[in-house]
């Protein structure tokens, strides 16, 4: 058994499950839009970790790597748009707490 095989797939799945759960916690518990985006980033990282780990262990080709690369790219695009929106809101409200946003109800 080579050294690199020392860690079973389950180790990675465990980390990714923890990241996903912490991301969900952040999303439910936080009201601040930027904090919620951080929760989303945790979830995206957990999914990416899964893709790369499966690519290495069960799939045996690079398709998971490519998926992860695209996810990272799109996360950057999403973050840029979100920042644009946050800047706009900051101009109009001076705050980005979800509770302060009560122009729309429900």
């Amino acid at each position, binding site marked *: 058994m080579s050294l690199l095989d020392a860690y079973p797939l389950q180790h990675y799945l465990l980390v990714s499950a923890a990241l996903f759960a912490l991301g969900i916690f952040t999303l439910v518990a936080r009201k601040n839009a930027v904090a919620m985006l951080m929760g989303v980033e945790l979830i995206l990282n*957990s999914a990416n970790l899964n893709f790369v780990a499966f690519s290495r262990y069960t799939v045996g080709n690079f398709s998971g790597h490519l*998926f992860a690369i695209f*996810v990272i790219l799109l996360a950057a695009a999403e973050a840029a748009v979100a920042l644009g929106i946050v800047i706009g809101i900051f101009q109009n409200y001076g705050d980005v707490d979800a509770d302060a946003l009560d122009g729309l109800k*429900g």
Partner: protein
Amino acid sequence: MSPTALALVQDLRLFLPEVILVLTTLLVIVLDVTPVRKSHRALLYLTFCGLLLSGIYLLRHYVDLRESGGRASSSNVLLFGNSIALDPFAVYFKGLFLLVGLLTGVLSIRYKKLNPAGEGEYCVLLLCSTLGLFLMVGSRTLLMAYLGLELVSIPSFVLAGFQRDSRLSNEAALKYTIYGAIASGIMLYGMSLLFGLAGSLDFAAIRHALEGQTELRASPLLLSVSMLMILAGFGYKIACVPFHMWCPDVYEGAPTPITAFLSVGPKAAGFGVILRFFYQSLSTHSGGGDWTPIVDQLQWPIVLSVLSVATMTVGNLAAVAQTSLKRLMAYSSIAHAGYLLMGVVVLSKDGIFAILFYLAVYVFMNFGAFLFVVFLHDLVGSEDIEGCRGLGWRAPFPCIAMAICLFSLTGLPPLGGFIGKFYLFLGVIGRELYWLAILGVLNSVVSLVYYARVVKAMFLENIPRGEAEPLPVPFFYSAAFAVLVAPILLLGVYWAPLVKLARYSSSIFGA
């Protein structure tokens, strides 16, 4: 085995509608920054030209597909290393999306709140979003489905917040973005689990992998978890319960033409991708145009029928209490996601056909209703039901057109919406899901309450004092209403051609 450059170029020939959309996008960007003086809405008209040209090539694909015979082998063309399918199913949807893009543009022509300085950006984002819709319905791999979905989402986040100085629009954009990011994140986790189990991103390969596995390995828990997570991403697009929370706020805050776009385009594309994914990956074709769930322990049709009932009930009950027309239409579109889901759960060609048929009618009904919202805002300055009071006597034609759209959304004969709902219920009854059919009919009755409230305000309530004189209706609105309402009326009495088209588009799918 990787495709050669030659093969990719050949595939590009079958990809011309999409290529034209990309080229139009680039042309709009270039023209937008050149210092040439442009007339009002010139870029919007250029966008129309691009969409129409794309439509011409789409028509050619359709004719080619028909001529190559109805056989599955020749008319299911796979492009770019099997990642995109060019089949009648996709072509049908793409035709709808071009219509949606055009109508969104038409609604924008007279929408006053639209910032004229941002016209170039507006057109670019609309074109990108339309391209995303194209890719979503054509996608045959998890990766393409995800990319298509994001190409729809990211421009629509910006479009929802396009009125930069409006707080409502800002909020709509923020809510839409955050919920969108959450939904796609959860979907990605589900996709990663499925990828790990099946070892491939390709829909068909996933089915083969799942079929080949003993029940020992494909644990039902894993499959249910990943399916539910993937459903979060698609469900967000079609706005079904419990992924509908963003919908009323975003619909209310977004510019009205964009609201109309969101209520039809992404919803239709979401159904396209749901049908493809659930029928090609999670079902086995059992002959005669019927499918069965791939693993006995994973009865996803039951999950979807529960969601369907929950969606239509929540949408209809919440709509009753609304005073804003845009919020009312938001809940109405949630309810319609519920009706359309009935077509997914029946797992038969009849179900697919009913969805295709209904979506075509839905485009006209919804855009008609949103055109009325634009009209109301333009001439009366209101977007509430209150603003419609007595309007039926002051501007009869637009109000009658709106009434027709609303009654068609309810599903009253002899309108197109009735025929669409009839086929949906027929599919459900054909599968002996009587409880679902009964709940669907009850929901339609509830929906009559709030649609009729608008009609009542228009025709049966007193005109506010001092506003009795007739309202001069610009020719633009009369023409636009006529164009949108004519198909609804026509399809109510003569629907055979659309039935033929929709049947053909669903017949080859998945076989």
